[in-house]
Every structure is written in C-alpha cells, then in structure tokens.
C-alpha cells in the first residue's frame, strides 16, 4: 500500500519534471494557435469575409499536408467590427486565455495602431496583415510587430508613378476620398508624391464625402463643372462602387481619367458598370489573373478552390491573409532549423521574421529590419473581356517596392517630398505579361 502511493508520487513528480524540461527544450506543442482579426461585420466586411474564407481554406490545406513539422495550425478569429475597447480586450483574451502565439491583426489601421504596443507587452508576434499605415513601424521600433504586405507609401507613390507613366501630360487633378484616416492619409502621400514628381500639377478639388456616403451626385456634378484631367480616389467597398457607378452613368469617366488604386477589390461587384481604360490597382502585386503566374499550379489551384468555396475570385485582402500565414509558417520553419529541430520560442520566431523572404500568391516578399515587408505594386487599366462578366486588369505594370518605399530610418512625409521625376522612367518598372488581345 505504502509502496504503491510512493510509486505514484514518484511517477507524478517525474511527469511534472519531464513536462517542464520538455517545455524548456522546445517539445512540439499539440497545435499552433494563430489569432486572426478581421471584419465580419460592418462596411469593411467586404474585405474581412473573403479574407476569413481564404484563411480557413489555406489552413485546412496546410494542415492536410502535415502542418508545421506535424503541428496543426488552429485559427482563432476575432471580429474587428466590435470596435476599439471591446476589440482590444478580445485581443488580450485570445492571447492570454487561449494561448494564441501569433496574432494576425488587422484590417483597420486604427486597430493595428491600438494593438501594436499591447503585442509588444504581451510578447506575442503581431503581424499587420492588411492595414496600410506606415506610421506604426516608422514612429517606433518594435520587436514583435511586423507587416507582411506593402504599406500606404509604397502603394500611393507607385500609383502616382504609374499615372505619370500612362498619362504624362495632364495638368489638373481632383480627389474624392472617404472622410476618415485612410482617405485623408493616402491623399496626403499621393499628393506630395505627385507634386514632387510633377511640380506643375494643379489640384482643383479635394472632396471628402463622409464614410459610407449613399450618394455622390453633388461631387460628380462639381467635378463635371471643374473638368479635371485626372480624378483619383482611394475609396473602397460600397463607397467606391457607388462613386464609379454614378460617375459612369453620368459620363464623368469619359471626360476625366480615373485613377483608382484599390479598385481591384470592387471589379467583380461592379460588373459592366466600370468602363474600359480606368487606371486601377490593388494593394500589393497579387492578382488572380496575373499572366506571370498563368501556369503556376499552386496559385491556380488556390484561385479555383477559393472560387469554388465563395463563388468569387480572390481580391487583395485574400492574398494579404495568405501572405501573413505563409510568413508565419516560413518563419517557424527557419526558427526550427536554427534551433536544431527543436520547437522555437517566440523570440526566435521574431528573429526569423526580421530577415524573412517568403512567397505566397505572387512574387517573393522580403521583410526589412524595421519589420516592414517590401512588396511590389501591380497597376493597370480595366478591360472588359467576353469570357468574364466583369472587367479584367490589362497592361499590368509592376513597380518594385524598394523604388517607392521610404528607406528604413527615414520618415515618409519628408522622404516623399524628395522624390525626383526620373523615378518615373526607371527601367526597373516593367510591364507584366502581354496585354489582352481583342478580336
């Protein structure tokens, strides 16, 4: 009797000791929990819902192929639509109570801003998988915070450069952006970049209709009276749909050259409501019909699976979430190798992230020392084709990220003003594939 109790005690103690040692030595966990914050409610669910579907699809596929050295990834989703305080406490909850080791947060730049310092405190890897604000990584050095996509500066400077390549001789420009942080900040960057590259440009109207505006009639009438050569808008979602549809119905798209850097995400919904010849882009360089990857089996299979699951083609937030997930597993793989096959700690994964080069649904992406990824930008013009009920993007141009991104250690507002006009002529900016041939 006595002996058996002692034996049990020894066994239990041994188990505890073993468990502790195992943890310290980096035994494989049962699963790797990855938190993903995304909008499943509110206006931004046009991005959040497809991205969530893509994340589920990708993780399912990844786990089916054996996971990360046999460790399965378990996604934990948090709705950004909760807003501010509630969102932050959900973020803390999944990290502290549910043992999430990596957070993919967020779509909203505001949310990214709120959680970055918290992630640093909690020592959890925080990947800004979609939000664009360049300020977070420029204002402060973080150990655990990274961005696996391009930022607003890359995107806006690339759009300005592309506009000047396609239409070098315009004089006047007007803007119609949503009245919130992204609408204001992106125009600030675009305007400063454009004025640095082409100082004789005249800005004739700066219109900021409210976020979620149901009607753009007055803005369109005003633009008809002003007749700017170029109209730029970084709007997205329902706002962009309404604006383009009304502008097209009233002939404004015929008299002004439209530049819509985020419109890739609206094309399928717009159908035939967007005319040919509008300059459009996406945040990043992943486009489902990119001719460079026409015969890439992996990308093709993903596009097909995504279409089968959701009934729609992937848009840029889809590639963003896949990029972030790919970066996580690649960083873990590098860290495991560096750790001689043992499961790495958070610091080791963070170190691996900082020098990571990875590839998801487009060209290779490199993470810089400040945690910012260098991802090129694809822009082109809309072109309707008989095979699809919506416009494709034709004459795709790839702008390499390092040409149009603020260097590490510099501040974007100053850097953008130092741009020189020969940037536009850089021979590193290249046409992708061959333009769609019309019969």
């Amino acid at each position, binding site marked *: 009797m006595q002996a058996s109790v002692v034996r049990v005690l020894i066994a239990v103690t041994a188990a505890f000791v073993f468990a502790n040692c195992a943890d310290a030595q980096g035994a494989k966990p049962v699963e790797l929990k990855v938190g993903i914050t995304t909008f499943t409610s509110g206006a931004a669910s046009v991005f959040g819902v497809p991205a969530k579907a893509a994340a589920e699809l990708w993780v399912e596929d990844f786990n089916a192929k054996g996971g990360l050295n046999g460790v399965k990834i378990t996604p934990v989703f948090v709705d950004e639509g909760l807003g501010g305080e509630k969102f932050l406490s959900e973020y803390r909850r999944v990290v502290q109570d549910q043992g999430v080791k990596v957070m993919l947060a967020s779509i909203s730049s505001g949310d990214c801003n709120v959680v970055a310092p918290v992630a640093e405190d909690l020592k959890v890897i925080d990947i800004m998988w979609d939000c664009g604000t360049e300020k977070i990584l420029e204002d402060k050095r973080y150990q655990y915070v990274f961005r696996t996509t391009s930022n607003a500066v890359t995107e806006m400077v690339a759009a300005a450069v592309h506009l000047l390549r396609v239409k070098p001789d315009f004089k006047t420009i007007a803007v119609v952006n949503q009245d919130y942080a992204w609408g204001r900040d992106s125009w600030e960057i675009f305007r400063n970049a454009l004025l640095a590259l082409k100082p004789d440009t005249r800005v004739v109207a700066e219109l900021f209709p409210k976020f979620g505006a149901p009607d753009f*009639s007055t803005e369109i009438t005003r633009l008809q009276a002003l007749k700017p050569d170029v109209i730029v808008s970084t709007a997205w979602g*329902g706002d962009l749909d309404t604006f383009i549809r009304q502008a097209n119905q009233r002939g404004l798209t015929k008299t002004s050259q439209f530049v819509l850097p985020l419109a890739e995400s609206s094309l399928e919904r717009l159908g035939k409501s967007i005319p040919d010849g509008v300059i459009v882009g996406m945040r990043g360089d992943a486009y489902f019909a990119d001719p460079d990857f026409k015969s890439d089996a992996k990308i093709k299979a993903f596009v097909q699976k995504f279409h089968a699951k959701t009934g729609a083609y992937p848009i840029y937030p889809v590639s963003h979430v896949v990029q972030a997930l790919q970066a996580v597993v690649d960083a873990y793989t590098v860290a495991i190798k560096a750790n001689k096959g043992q499961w790495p700690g958070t610091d080791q994964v963070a170190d691996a992230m900082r020098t990571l080069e990875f590839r998801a649904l487009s060209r290779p992406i490199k993470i810089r020392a400040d945690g910012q990824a260098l991802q090129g930008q694809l822009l082109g013009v809309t072109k309707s084709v008989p095979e699809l009920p919506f416009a494709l993007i034709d004459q795709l141009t790839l702008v390499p990220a390092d040409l149009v991104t603020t260097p590490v250690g510099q501040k974007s507002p100053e850097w953008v003003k130092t741009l020189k006009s020969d940037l536009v002529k850089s021979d590193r900016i290249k046409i992708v594939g061959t333009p769609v041939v019309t019969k």
Partner: protein
Amino acid sequence: MNLDLLVLALADGLSYAGLLFLVALGLTLIFGVMGILNVAHGSLYAFGGYTAASLSGIAIQWDPSTVLLLACLPAAAIVVGVILGAALEIGLLRRVQRGDAVVPLLITFAAFMIFEDLQKLLWGTSPYSAPEVVTRLGTIDVAGGTFNCYQLLLIPGVALAAYVLLEFFLKRTNLGKQVTAVTHNREVATALGINAKRIGLVTFVLGAVLGALGGALAAPTTSLLPGVGTDTIVLSFAVVATAGLGQITGALIAALLIGLARSVAVYMAPELEVVVPYLIMVIVLLVRPNGLFAIAQARKI
C-alpha cells in the same frame, strides 16, 4: 459661386431631398397619427432597398422592358411595407398602445436591431445595387452638367406625387378623413364609430410602404450595405424635427431645405457637408423649439 453653379447645386439637392422626403414622410405620418416615433423605419428603408435590388436582379435575367424594371421598385416597397409594417403593428405596437410613450420607442428600437441582423442573414455583407434602370433611363444636360433622368426627374417626381396623393387621401377620401379624425382625438373618433385600431394599422402600413419606397428608389443609385438603415433614420429624424413632428407639408419643405443646403455646401464648404443637416436642425430648434411648422397641439397632421 455663380448662377450656373447654383443651378447645378439645386439640381443635385432636388434628388437627395426627394428620397429624404419619402422616408421622412412615412416617419412623420406614423408619429402624427399614432404618436409613435418608429426607429425601425430605418430597417424598412433598408429592406425596401435590398428587396428592390434582389427583385431587379431576378427580373433582369428575363430581359424585361424598362417599365417592368421600374415597376420592381414600388412592388418591392409594397411587399416589404405591407408585410413588415403589418407585422410590427399587429405583432408588437398594438399590444403596448396604452402604456408609457417610451415603451413603443424602445420596442421599435429593439425591432430595428433585430431587423439589422435579419438583413445580414438574408443578404450578407457585400454591397447590393440595381443600377440597370438608371442606365436605361439615360441622361439629360442641364446648365453644362450631365444628370441622370432617374435622379433628376423620376425621384423628385415620385416624391411630389407621394405628397399630393397623401394630401388628397387625408383631405378628400373617407378613410383619410377617418385618419385625420383619429389624429385629432382618438377617443372621440372611436365614440363616433371609427375603428381606431384599423386606422392605426392602415397608417402604419402606409408609413412603412413610404419608408420602403425610399429605400427601393435609392437602390439603383447607391450601394446597400449593413448600417444603411441607421444613416437614413438619423437624417430623417433631423428632417422631421426641423419640420415639427407630424407635419407633412413641413417635412416637404424641411427635406428640400436640407437637401439643397447640403449640395450647396459641397460647392462652397465641402468640409461642412455632413454637419449641414444638423446645423439647420439646431438653428431651427433654437428659434422654434417645436420645429418650423408645428402648430398648437390641436391638430397634428
């Protein structure tokens, strides 16, 4: 700002005012007759819009004539208004008529939140629209600007017709006179043999149809999204408060005032666009706390 620009601004304001008026009209009618501030009116707008977009989407597959495509819009409004309006009145509001005035307000607010989620279940979160009819109706040039016939002529036309028909209904028809009588004094009207319950139902359904019609007419030019009902209800509250609760002609004038001021603001001071309706409301309420057209309590509509 020269005269040409003013004409352009007025043309824009007209269409905006038309939609605003239709929604505010339903709201003010229900308040006038029943004393209920119907928060769920915003959901009726949203449901009207979504249903119209879905109906047009189905109709378009049969390659219909423009008239048929146009008819989808009021048809959607009537279906939504009658079903949801009657359900709200019979299922909820009728049961709390005698209670505190704040109870119906809370009930319609609850209904509004339920409808908001129901709408997400039915239509999801992607933007919906029904732009085909606008393209079919073509454009018209006014003072150097190109406008949609749909927005410049059809919407203000429908709004005006709704106003004239409602005035005719209330002043010239038997049922309308009964509505007016109930508005004056519910108990006396009941004593005179008017079925006040029935009048309540008729009014509520009529108001609901008007709200849904606002949404249905907006569907071809806007993108319907979750939350569209909230924006609408807040703005139409501003119209109704400016006009004076229960004032039909007042709502017409207030909607015009707010619609025109908003579009002039886009020209002169775009930063003020969002705040203009509320600015007008505050100024009016400071001078006339019961609204522009509120008459002493004797009659509400």
